[in-house]
C-alpha cells in the first residue's frame, strides 16, 4: 500500500514538473544569427548582441509580438545577434529569470518591457554599468533609490503617447457613429473596454474621450474594465452590453480579453477598434467576418521604437539615462489605415482624422494624459 502511495505521489510530482516546465520555461526563440550586411557588422568588429526579455509569452497578437518584430528587424537590417527569452505568464518568476538572463547571456543591449519590470530593472541595471538596457512602455525612476549607484545612466526608457493615438481613434469613432453606414445607429454613443484600471490604460481612455468630445460635444463615451487580460468571454459580454445600450463602436484596450470584443462585433453586426497591432490584418485569414468589423486599430508601434532606439545606439546618439515619449511625430503611435479603413470610411471623416493628426503634430491640440 505504502509503495503504491509513493509511486503515485512521484508520478504526480513528475506530471506537475512537466506541466510547470511547459508553462513557464525560459525558451529561447531562434533568432537570426547570420550577420548580414549592415552597419553594425563591419569587418573584424563584433556584431551587436541583443537579448529581448519578454515577461510573458509571445503570440499575444499585439504588444509583445510587435516588440519581437522590432527585434527581428534589427537582426535583419543591422546584422545584430538577437535572442529572445520568454519568462512565462507567472509574475513570481520574472525577477529571477531576468537576473539569470543578465548573468548568463552575452549581450550589449538587453530589451525589457512593461511597468511590471520597472522595479526589477532598477535593481539590476546598476550592477551592470557597462551594459545597456532598453525599457519599453514604462520609465525607470532615474532619481530613485534603486537607481542611485549610477542613476540608471545605462537605461533608455521608451514611453508611448497612447493618448495621442487614442485621440485620433476618438475623433474617428465620434465621426463614424453618426454616419449612415450599415451597423451604425443614429445615437452618438461609443464605447471602450479596458483590461484593468491602470495608468497606461487610462491614458488610452483619456485621449479617446477627449478626441470624441472635441468632434461631437454631445457624445457619450462608455468606459468599462474587464478586470483581466485573458478572458475573451468576459470581453464579449462587456461589448454586447455596450452595444445593447446604443454604442456601435467599441475600442478594445484589453489584450486577449479584447478578442471577445471582435466576436461580439461580428455577431451583433456592430464595429470595434483594435489596439497595439493592426489587428484586422492579423485575424483576417481565419476570421474574415470579424476582420471586416474592425474599423481601424490604434497602433502602438513598439517595433518602430525598438528599431529607432538601436539605430540611434549605433549612431551613438541614443540618450541613455533618460526616458523618451514617442508620439505621432516619432512614429510611436498611430491609426491603422488599412484596406478596411479605406473602404468603409467616408472622405469627410478621413479628412477630419488627418486634420486632427496635423493639429497634434503642429501643437495646436495638446492631448490630456493620465500620467500626472
Amino acid at each position: 500500500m505504502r509503495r503504491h502511495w509513493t509511486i503515485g505521489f512521484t508520478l504526480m510530482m513528475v506530471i506537475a514538473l512537466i506541466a510547470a516546465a511547459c508553462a513557464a520555461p525560459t525558451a529561447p526563440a531562434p533568432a537570426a544569427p547570420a550577420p548580414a550586411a549592415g552597419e553594425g557588422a563591419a569587418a573584424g568588429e563584433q556584431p551587436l548582441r541583443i537579448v529581448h526579455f519578454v515577461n510573458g509569452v509571445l503570440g499575444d497578437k499585439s504588444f509583445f509580438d510587435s516588440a519581437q518584430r522590432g527585434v527581428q528587424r534589427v537582426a535583419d537590417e543591422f546584422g545584430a545577434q538577437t535572442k529572445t527569452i520568454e519568462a512565462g505568464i507567472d509574475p513570481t518568476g520574472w525577477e529571477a529569470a531576468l537576473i539569470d538572463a543578465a548573468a548568463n547571456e552575452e549581450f550589449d543591449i538587453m530589451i525589457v518591457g512593461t511597468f511590471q519590470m520597472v522595479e526589477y530593472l532598477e535593481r539590476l541595471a546598476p550592477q551592470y554599468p557597462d551594459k545597456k538596457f532598453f525599457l519599453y512602455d514604462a520609465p525607470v525612476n532615474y532619481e530613485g533609490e534603486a537607481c542611485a549607484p549610477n542613476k540608471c545612466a545605462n537605461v533608455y526608457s521608451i514611453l508611448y503617447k497612447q493618448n495621442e493615438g487614442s485621440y485620433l481613434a476618438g475623433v474617428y469613432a465620434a465621426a463614424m457613429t453618426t454616419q449612415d453606414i450599415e451597423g451604425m445607429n443614429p445615437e452618438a454613443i461609443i464605447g471602450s473596454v479596458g483590461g484593468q484600471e491602470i495608468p497606461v490604460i487610462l491614458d488610452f481612455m483619456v485621449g479617446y474621450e477627449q478626441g470624441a468630445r472635441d468632434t461631437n460635444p454631445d457624445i457619450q463615451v462608455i468606459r468599462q474594465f474587464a478586470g483581466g487580460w485573458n478572458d475573451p468571454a468576459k470581453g464579449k459580454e462587456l461589448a454586447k452590453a455596450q452595444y445593447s445600450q446604443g454604442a456601435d463602436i467599441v475600442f478594445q484596450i484589453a489584450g486577449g480579453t479584447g478578442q471577445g470584443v471582435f466576436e461580439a462585433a461580428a455577431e451583433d453586426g456592430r464595429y470595434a477598434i483594435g489596439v497595439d497591432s493592426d489587428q484586422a490584418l492579423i485575424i483576417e485569414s481565419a476570421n474574415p467576418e470579424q476582420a471586416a468589423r474592425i474599423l481601424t486599430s490604434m497602433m502602438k508601434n513598439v517595433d518602430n521604437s525598438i528599431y529607432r532606439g538601436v539605430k540611434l545606439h549605433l549612431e551613438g546618439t541614443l540618450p541613455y539615462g533618460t526616458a523618451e515619449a514617442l508620439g505621432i511625430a516619432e512614429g510611436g503611435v498611430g491609426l491603422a489605415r488599412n484596406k478596411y479603413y479605406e473602404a468603409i470610411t467616408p472622405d469627410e471623416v478621413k479628412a477630419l482624422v488627418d486634420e486632427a493628426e496635423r493639429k497634434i503634430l503642429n501643437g495646436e491640440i495638446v492631448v490630456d494624459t493620465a500620467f500626472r
Partner: protein
Amino acid sequence: MSLEVVLQSIFSAAFIATVIRVATPLILPAMGGLLSDLGGVINIALEGIMLAAAFTGVIVSGFAPQWFPGAPAWSYPWLGALAGVLVGMAMGWLIAFFHLELKTDIILTGLAMNILASGATVFLMFSFTGDKGSTSTLASARLPSLQIPFVNNVPVLGTLLNGENGTGYNIMSYLAFALVAVIWIFLYRTPAGAHLRATGEMPDAAQSVGIDIRRVRYQALVASGFCAALGGLYLSMGYLSIFQANMTAGRGFIALAVIFLGNRNPIGALIAALIFGTASALGTRLGTMAIPPQFVEMIPPAVTIAALIIYNIRRRARINAAARRFQEQTAP
C-alpha cells in the same frame, strides 16, 4: 450612460439571453462536479478539464480538413467536440486511476491536472499553430445554434427563445438544461443513482450491501470529465470561436462553488448558476454607468455570498423549527 438606458437594457428579454449565455459554462461543469462529489470523490480539476477540452475541440475542428480529408465540412465541429469529450473523459479516468489505484490524494491529483492542462494546452498550441497566445489565426469550427422557428416575429418571445439576434441559443445551452433534468432523474429515480449517493454518503455501508464502490467512483469521475468537457467546448466552440491560453478564467472553480451553493442538488446547482449568471450580467450592464469598476466586479461574488448566507439562515430556522416540533411532540 444614463440610468434610464441601463435599466432598459436590464429589464429586457435580451438580458435573459445574456444570463443563459453566461450560466451555460457554469451549469455544465457543475453537473459533472456534482456527480463526482456525490460519489465521494470531489473533482477539483473541472477547470483543467474544461481547458483541455476547449483546446482539443478547437484544434481538431480547425485541422479536420487536413486530418480527415474525406469528412464533410458539417462534421468538423462534431469531430472536434467528440475529441474534446474524449479528452475530458480520459482526464476524469486518469484522476480516478491515480486516486483509486495509486491512492493519491484527490485534491492534489485535481490540482496537478489543472496545472498540467494549463501548461500542456499552451505547449501543444505552440506545437500545432506556432502561437502561444490564442488560436485566432486558425479557422476553427463552431457548434451550431438551434433556432426555434416562427417566434422571431413575436416581439418579446422571439428574443427570449432565440437570443437578441434571433439566431437561437447554442446547442450546448440546451444540452446544459437537459443535462440537469437527466442527472436529477438519474440521481433520484434510478438504482444506479441511489448507489452513487450511497457510495458518497457512507462507502462502508454501500460496500456491505454489495455495491462496487470502486467502479461507481470510476464512473462518477469519468462522467464528471464528460460534463466539464462540454462546458469547455461551449466556451471555445460556441460562446467564442477561439481558444486562448487560460480562457476558462476560473469558471471551473466557480462551478465548484455553485455545487455547494446549490446544496449538492442538480436543481439547486442550476439555480445557483443562474444567480451567478444574473449577477454577472447585471455587473456588465451597470458597469456602463460612471461607477467604480471595482464595485461592479464585486457584484457577482457579493450576490453569491449573500445568497449563501440567506440560504443558511433559512435552513437553520427550518432545522430549529423541526427540533422544536419534535420536542413538543415528545414532551410528556
